[in-house]
């Protein structure tokens, strides 16, 4: 026993700060195809290695390799590519709208498009997704109208959330997209509750919840894992590890000591750690976890390794806390480029076709923006009516809210 040694307080620091060279040496990238693919019935205790490896399908030259190659029609890959391109274009257009004062706030998902898009296209229409605020790719992949999305961002007269919710906090039940909360992690345990309800009713639908790696620190993350394993809920619990929670790097959520996927192991839940910028791996891992849930084999945790290429939000300036060009060194590349290269390598696509796609998507997004702006933006003040602020607090408006609404109208 050593006595009298001064105790040392340790604070994790990211490998690089502004002005320093980006350093991703902490990300170990195994060759594509090297992770094994167990049968879904495998006992969770016999696949713990998958929480520490990295499932990758697409290699550096764009070919698909290994046991996780998903069976997919070429058309499905094209839809995925188009949705990812559309998501990025939509983000750029909305960022511009925010800079022009048409909305108060926006959040891009640049570099993370494959995760929400692949997840949306792989799960069933009737499943329920409990998203984060960076999952707009889901809505676009499921062809929820761009105009609806934009009207919400503009809080205008056609915003079906009546301007009461911050921009990008969409709710779209008809495409299985649960209302976004600004509070982190709360939806994770709700996804488990929804899945428990589906099992209680003998339904066939499953749920999926998503959080960022920073949010794994929240109590609700742990509540979700505890309830999911206790009741073996048919749910997919996704951790999008994009390395940064605003200015806080993944080490401040404990990421330097273990993988985020490994948090599942103590709960007896199988965990996959997946290259989140590899569209084929996203499809394959989602499919595997969904099959487990549908077969009454219980929950699966998936850690998606990716990088938040854009700022956290329009209120954030990442050059103040990380190297400005860090994104260029990210070892898992750009999900759009990688899927494009794969399609080209297969002979199903060309640079020219891709240019046409980008131009086509650009036109569609621009047309939608013009349409949405015709219903108003923050700039022209044609926002949702003030009267609506008293609606939907309760199903039926109680007397005290009726009185307050009258007073607001009388004293305007």
């Amino acid at each position, binding site marked *: 026993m050593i006595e009298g040694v001064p105790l040392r307080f340790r604070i994790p620091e990211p490998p690089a700060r502004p002005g320093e060279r980006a350093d991703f040496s902490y990300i170990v990238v195994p060759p594509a195809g090297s992770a094994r693919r167990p049968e879904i019935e495998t006992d969770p205790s016999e696949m713990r290695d998958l929480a520490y490896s990295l499932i990758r399908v697409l290699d550096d030259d764009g070919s698909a390799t290994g046991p996780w190659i998903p069976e997919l029609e070429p058309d499905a890959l094209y839809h995925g590519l188009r949705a990812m391109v559309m998501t990025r274009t939509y983000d750029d257009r909305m960022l511009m709208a925010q800079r022009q004062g048409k909305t108060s706030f926006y959040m891009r998902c640049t570099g993370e498009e494959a995760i929400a898009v692949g997840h949306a296209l792989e799960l069933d229409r009737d499943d329920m997704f*409990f998203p984060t605020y960076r999952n707009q790719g889901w809505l676009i992949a499921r062809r929820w109208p761009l105009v609806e999305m934009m009207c919400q961002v503009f809080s205008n007269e056609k915003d079906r959330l009546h301007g009461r*919710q911050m921009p990008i906090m969409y709710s779209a039940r008809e495409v299985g997209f649960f209302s976004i909360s600004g509070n982190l992690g709360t939806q*994770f345990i709700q996804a488990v*509750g929804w899945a428990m309800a589906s099992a*209680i009713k003998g339904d066939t639908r499953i749920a999926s919840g998503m959080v960022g790696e920073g949010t794994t620190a929240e109590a609700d993350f742990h509540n979700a894992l505890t309830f999911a394993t206790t009741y073996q809920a048919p749910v997919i619990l996704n951790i999008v590890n994009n390395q940064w929670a605003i200015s806080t790097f993944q080490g401040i959520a404990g990421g330097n000591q273990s993988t985020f996927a490994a948090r599942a192991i103590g709960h007896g839940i199988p965990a996959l750690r997946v290259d989140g910028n590899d569209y084929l791996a996203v499809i394959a891992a989602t499919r595997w976890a969904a099959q487990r849930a549908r077969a009454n084999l219980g929950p699966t945790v998936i850690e998606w390794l990716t990088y938040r290429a854009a700022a956290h939000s329009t209120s954030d300036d990442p050059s103040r806390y990380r190297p400005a060009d860090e994104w260029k060194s990210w070892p898992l590349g750009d999900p759009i480029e990688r899927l494009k290269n794969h399609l080209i390598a297969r002979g199903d696509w060309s640079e020219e076709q891709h240019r046409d796609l980008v131009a086509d998507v650009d036109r569609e997004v621009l047309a939608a923006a013009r349409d949405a702006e015709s219903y108003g933006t923050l700039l022209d003040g044609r926002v949702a009516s003030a009267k609506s602020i008293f609606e939907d607090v*309760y*199903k039926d408006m109680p007397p*005290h809210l009726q009185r307050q609404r009258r007073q607001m109208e009388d004293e305007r």
Partner: protein
Amino acid sequence: MTTMAMNAAIRSAIDVMMERDDNVVVFGEDIGYFGGVFRCTEGLQAKYGSERVFDAPIAEGGIVGAAVGMGAYGLRPVIEIQFADYVYPGLDQLISEAARLRYRSSAEFTAPLTVRMPCGGGIHGGQTHSQSPESLFTHVCGLITVIPSNPYDAKGLLIASIEDDDPVIFLEPKRLYNGPFDGHHDKPVVPWAGHPLGEVPDGYYRVELGSAAIRRPGDDLTVLAYGTMVYVAEAAAEETGIDAEIIDLRTLLPLDTDTIEASVAKTGRCVIVHEATRTSGFGAELSATVQELCFYHLEAPIERVTGWDTPYPHAQEWDYFPGPARVGAAYRRVIAA
């Protein structure tokens, strides 16, 4: 009609609703096989099966969060927080989620849950088994807050709460489970048998949310009370001989201001009684409401009789509890003013 204690009436309400609606599910800590530490779910698991009545992990945030997800699916969860003192880890899910889901999604998703929790002191529970946190909930728009004072109301209000499409906080004054406790802790326990409000219909009935009840008509002053304090207020009226009109609020939000206004306009005097701590307690809201509605009828300052602004002490419980002596003293001051 059957004579029921308040916990039995609560059990009966859940039973009736589970029978009527397959979407009603019940979960919480120790509530399944064992039937709950206050026996409010006894026998329900045996009757309806463990898929509809089941034990939960010790995680109040998880219990409420899972219920929000179930509500969004289409179920009608009735969850138990073992003591109101334990609800705090669940507050984020109640305040930021359950109470806001309808508003933020424009009613695409709702959270029709009922959150039952025993509250109040008088059982030597110390600071962790005695609190009355009602004003934390009445301060949250989107929540309904209910607190019954007797078996008949408990059943009817709980049925109305379960049927309500908004989240309801259902506070159960635990000292009332076994009888109408009036604060005289040194006297033998009076059971519900023999009390008219201990007679409870066996089947379905509702006591509507948002309506108060006049427990004792009177002309000298108005008492605004709820839960256990209704009986303390009655005892104080009897012991002082002051003709108090005692209003049992039953639902704190939405508040039945019509009944309050009519009574104070008649008596011109008002005493507010609650067990919770005083500062920013629900009594402050009531006092402001009476002032706004009845200022020109008031003949005396409004008095509040409440728990002290301290944690609920263990050995000194009866010095903390606002009993008939303190309530009676307030009556006398308000009459003399």
